[in-house]
């Protein structure tokens, strides 16, 4: 009795096994094992910074294309790029490391609020219903959509200034905050040698007098920086200065010149007392070593700072 049962069940098992084998052969999905390997290497945060749906979709795109042209994992940076290139057997596409920069100076002290917003705490919503607490239609609304968008915990709101702060260590330059900011305040800029950056912390395109009415640290479009810059890195358009980070050589002449303090220089030691006229070596050297390809550990190229 038991034997019959075992035999019948065994037979059924064998029949199904044969059927399943042929079905599996018929409907086999061929997937490149490389996809799995690459997906393993990618950060796995699914941040969407590459423009794909997630890390696996990106891995598929890599394999489909066979090289890395035009595909870049901003969150993974150089390290991941190298690993992926190794797996794909191509040269990695190297680009300068970037970091998110908040281009607004409208802190509680600089841009005094004239009214209070108590609606839904969402920048996109606030942007659609009113100009902002100080009246500046370009400035940060301070409701933290960028903080919510950041997958890496690199953004936080400074309770004192009411502005978002970027943690350079954590920021992977995935660009999620750039996309989410309804006012386009956050920009991805070159991380810079030794993390040093000079940028205009303002987006105000109003004429100077109006801009100043809203915010004491606004760019008034006076053009002093444009004239001062020895490298032609600064352009004033629509009453707003913009520093091209590919041309800027971090001399900081514009910072000293700006009458409102709208130009920010970060991670610099304090300026030395003005003995020597702005040393030409100070600006030359970065050109020679130009590519911060090895910017992971930048060499101390600029001893005058």
């Amino acid at each position, binding site marked *: 009795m038991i034997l019959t049962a075992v035999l019948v069940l065994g037979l059924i098992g064998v029949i199904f096994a044969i059927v399943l084998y042929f079905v599996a052969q018929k409907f086999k999905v061929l997937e490149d094992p490389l996809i799995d390997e690459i997906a393993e290497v990618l950060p796995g945060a699914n941040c969407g910074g590459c423009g794909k749906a997630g890390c696996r979709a990106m891995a598929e795109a890599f394999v489909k294309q066979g090289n890395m042209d035009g595909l870049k994992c901003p969150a993974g940076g150089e390290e991941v790029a190298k690993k992926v290139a190794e797996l794909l057997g191509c040269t990695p596409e190297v680009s300068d490391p970037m970091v998110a920069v908040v281009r607004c100076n409208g802190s509680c002290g600089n841009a005094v609020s*004239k*009214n209070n917003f108590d609606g839904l705490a969402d920048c996109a*919503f606030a942007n*659609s*219903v*009113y*100009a902002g607490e100080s*009246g500046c*239609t370009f400035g940060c609304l301070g409701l933290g959509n960028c903080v919510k968008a950041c997958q890496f915990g690199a953004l936080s709101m400074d309770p004192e200034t009411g502005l978002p702060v970027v943690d350079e260590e954590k920021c992977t330059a995935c660009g999620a905050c750039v996309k989410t900011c309804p006012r386009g305040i956050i920009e991805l800029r070159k991380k810079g040698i030794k993390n040093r950056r000079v940028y205009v912390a303002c987006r105000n395109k109003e004429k100077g007098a109006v801009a100043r009415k809203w915010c004491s640290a606004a760019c008034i479009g006076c053009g002093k920086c444009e004239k001062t810059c020895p490298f032609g890195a600064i352009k004033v358009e629509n009453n707003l200065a913009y520093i091209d980070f590919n041309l800027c050589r971090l001399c900081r002449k514009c910072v000293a010149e700006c009458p409102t303090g709208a130009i920010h220089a970060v991670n610099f030691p304090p300026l030395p007392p003005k003995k020597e006229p702005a040393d030409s070596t100070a600006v030359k050297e970065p050109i020679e070593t130009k590519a911060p390809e090895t910017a992971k550990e930048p060499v101390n190229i600029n001893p005058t700072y």
Partner: protein
Amino acid sequence: MKTFKMGGVHPEENKISTNAAIEQMPLPKQVAVLMNQHLGAPATPIVAKGDKVKVGQLIAEAQAFMCANIHSPVSGTVNKIDVCKDMVGLPKTAIYIDVEGDEWMETIDRTPDIKRDCSLEPKEIVAKLKEMGIVGLGGATFPAHIKYSVPEGKKAEYLIINAAECEPYLTSDHRVMMEHAEEICIGVSILRKALGVPNAYIGIESNKPEPIRVMSEMAKNFEGIIVEPLVVKYPQGAEKQLINSITGRKVPSGKLPIDVGCVVSNIGTTFAVYEAIQKNKPLIENILTVTGKKLPSQHNYQCRIGITYNDIIKHALGELPSNTGKVISGGTMMGKAISNLDAPTTKGASSVLVMDESESRRRPESNCIRCGKCMNACPMGLEPYLFSALVKNNRIEEAQSHNILDCIECGCCFFSCPANKPLTDEIRLGKAKVRAMMAAKK
């Protein structure tokens, strides 16, 4: 008494300025006339700096389809055409005019006599509405000439005049009915003729017994005007709800009132229509309620368009009370808080509502307990709590499939929510996201 079937709430009515007769607001020193005072594309200025203009002169022309003409509300010199911050502080183009005297266009009939006969053909009426820059004064400022040109293949059966004035505090419609009943009835007859409908229904909420009496008596002298008292329930004056109240019909999702044979017009618009057609007066004035529970006096003013909110407040109150928390344009349910009092009024403005600090704060928000009060309150039969969750989690397609775009933003859900969740704000954000998604798909 008639009412709509679904949802609705009963906010405190606060109609405290009903007995204040309409006063004439003195002319300001300067006006700023915004170029987009209506739904649709902004009008194009046709005057230049230094030009002399008269009251009622065309200063900006409608060039797009969805647009309305704009006329000078004052006489004087064009000071500049520049950017002007609107009441929420966003930049708009405006024509600034320095006021000099009060010289009107000769074509405008300023006599107080009432002109009863209208010999214009329907097409001519619509053309004249377009020329005079008439827009709907119920809040949406929809250009009137588009509303009254019924598209091919559709037929208007009902003309419904919205005099519900269901928003708390507002009394401008109330006062217009009390003081200009006959003109309104003539205006309604003109619109009836333009659409070719047998009957026009004027819906008035029953908390306005005096206007109901006055209008009913006046309507007896006119053919085909029926006054319908309505149950007091917010949002009785919303277009789709009013259609449901008066005709029992339901406007399907994504359709317009004309698809169910209805055209709805605000009572203020009918008065503007009368003045435009019979007196050649363009839309250069509107009636504003200046009110607030804590204010020493309540007013209804006839103001020229383009006067700043500050000018109005200065004339009506001297200055704002020191404990003012919010100044709202419109009622408490759908009005917008004004963040820039230097902004000029527009065609659609209906009130200046001053609230003190204690009245103007939102109560602290807590978690949704799925009580379903918002669903019971929603006059469109939607699920506000669901939208709130979907929008928060960026599930925009799902929100669209639950008809988020049907929301009329009446505020009933927020009003009824025991957890004080800003549901209407979330839905507005969701609607904007759905529209952006639809635009991206195209």
